[in-house]
């Protein structure tokens, strides 16, 4: 068997899965977006009507704006993960333990995390408001006020991802920097700001870009679980994300074509990022 054939044989199972579970459903979704289908009556072809309605739908606009606002946590996630990686990159037992502690939330089910945060933000008996009461601060109704609900969701999104896989990528990246560079920096007495600019940044630039791209893609595609479990997309739709809107349209309100159109527009929103990711992905 030639190397090419052997390689193809190894790739085939994964490739088949991608074709059947990603590419074909994605194509079906694009086709479905041209139909009106309630699941209980035969689909009827409506051309681009779903897109026209969608682009004039204030609910879609609000969900898109909410998603973009929530995605603003991504740079903070990346910066925080980088800072944590810098702090935890040493290999002492203490740092190893800390790394594990920081990484733990990534291993916990998001369902449990969001329900826990929901009770922390609860207005009457929540931990946060009790603490604020103790120090004499007037506590907001976090999940009941459209203004504060979004901030509460952003805090949770930041908290759950800051010590996660992005930090691991950075830790791995930091290990690639030759130790001599650090020695030279120490000898020259370079302050942290200069070390970041002259040593870390050149080595980590592509990884930062990669993490930012992945983060934004995840933020635009995601946000379903947190909306479903923590806020119900409210109050007043202030935390409805595109993925939650897609779920509601397709699986709650049985507007399959409309929901599919939301999915296609989400893909169009992330496609420039996909291209960027492709270009900026670390090569070694």
């Amino acid at each position: 068997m030639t190397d090419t054939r052997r390689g193809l044989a190894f790739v085939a199972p994964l490739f088949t899965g991608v074709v059947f579970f990603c590419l074909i459903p994605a194509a079906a979704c694009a086709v479905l977006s041209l139909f009106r289908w309630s699941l209980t009556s035969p689909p009827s072809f409506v051309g681009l009507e779903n897109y026209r309605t969608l682009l004039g739908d204030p609910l879609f606009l609000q969900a898109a704006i909410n998603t973009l606002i929530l995605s603003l946590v991504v740079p903070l996630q990346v910066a925080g993960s980088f800072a944590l990686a810098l702090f935890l990159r040493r290999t002492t037992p203490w740092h190893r333990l800390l790394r594990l502690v920081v990484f733990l939330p990534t291993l916990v089910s998001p369902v449990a995390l969001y329900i826990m945060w929901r009770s922390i933000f609860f207005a009457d008996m929540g931990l946060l408001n009790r603490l604020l009461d103790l120090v004499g601060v007037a506590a907001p109704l976090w999940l009941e006020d459209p203004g504060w609900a979004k901030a509460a969701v952003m805090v949770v999104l930041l908290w759950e991802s800051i010590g996660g896989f992005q930090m691991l990528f950075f830790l791995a990246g930091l290990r690639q920097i030759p130790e001599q560079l650090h020695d030279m920096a120490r000898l020259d007495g370079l302050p942290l700001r200069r070390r970041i600019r002259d040593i870390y940044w050149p080595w980590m630039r592509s990884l930062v870009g990669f993490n930012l791209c992945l983060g934004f893609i995840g933020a635009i595609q995601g946000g379903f679980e947190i909306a479903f479990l923590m806020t119900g997309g409210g109050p007043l739709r202030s935390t409805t994300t595109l993925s939650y809107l897609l779920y509601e349209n397709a699986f709650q309100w049985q507007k399959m074509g409309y929901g599919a159109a939301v999915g296609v527009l989400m893909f169009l929103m992330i496609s420039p990022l996909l291209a960027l990711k492709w270009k900026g992905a670390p090569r070694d």
Partner: protein
Amino acid sequence: MPIKKVLMLLCLLAIMAGCRPAPDGTVTLVWATNSHPSRIDAARWFEKQHPGVRVEIMPMGDSRQFFLKCLYGDAPDVITFFSADTFQAFAENGLLRPLSGPSRSAWPYYDALQDYCFKGHTDELMALPQVAYPYVLYVNPELVPQEKAMAVQSWRDLLGLVRTLSPAVTDTGKPVFGLDIQSESVWFTTWYWQRGGRFFSPEGNSVLDRDIARETLAAMERWRRLPGVIPRPSDRLNLPSSGASQGVLGSLFLQGRALFYWSGSWKIADFEAQDRVPWQVRMLPTGPVNGLTVMGGNSFGVSCRSTHPELAKQFVAALAGKAAQKRHLAHRIYLPARKGIPIPQSLAVLKEQAKAARCPEHSALLNEALVKEIFKQALEAHRLGVANDEEAAEMLASALEAGAVEVPRD
């Protein structure tokens, strides 16, 4: 050759996996329902009466998802319906077998349950009911003197009484509210009906009366503005999530923090399971025009894909029969759907309430989940002050006409 041995072993395993135990003559009926002890009890009771039959309970989860699963995949033999809209969706899509039973005119059950059993506006019986859930008013007799609670007939009486008893506090110094309400939507629906309004025509089109809706919203707002009468959602333990259970902890009444609680009769189970807060049940007050209130219920239908349809029909008939309904009372929760079954004297008021109740309105043109969301958004916008009475009524009317959720504009 090792490869041959491996292949033979795999073949052997595949053959063994395909083998089934020899049939023992047992017939299995699959019943989609919730996992309440009363269901398990009913299943075991039927099994005892029918040796050789096993009733397997299948959890249903979200009703909309379950409907789609039955439409496109496998369906159980017997299906429980917890909302009239879900039942109608099954009946309209040909997923149920017609049942033989009483016609509408000879209906031995509470009238409000007809929408849970008869397909559309025809006389075709497709399901039989077991239980009625009228909304009632719970009273804390430690906080409200009984004679005063008994004297309440109208909402004006109730408000007057609440104001004479307020402000009250618990032993721990927490405020006691006048009236906790399980759902804004039930509040709005009841008051709107009691002013003579309707939401949908028999054809399913929206016939929302904007004037009555506005008047209802204005009345709700007047009650909300009175301090200590209506708790805010943040005063309760439940939060606006759609994914997690809203559970019994959400009731202020069970914490001794509400004089009255307006909720469904299924709450009786929670109240009976605790001994902290005393409680009584009263009829809901009547409105300016009539005394119509909301009633829920459940019913059982036989799937058209059932492999044992006759046995499934027997099971449904047994569940809805007098013996099973009497037995169901042992669980001390629900009002039997069939009229004339004796219930404890302390709960006799449930029967009176059921007579004045009707099923929540639904439209074959609009999806149930969408209608719920339309109500939720309009009422939430009104409660949070983003939309005034006029705007919220308009929001509701246009959303019901367009069949789309309206977003309140700042």
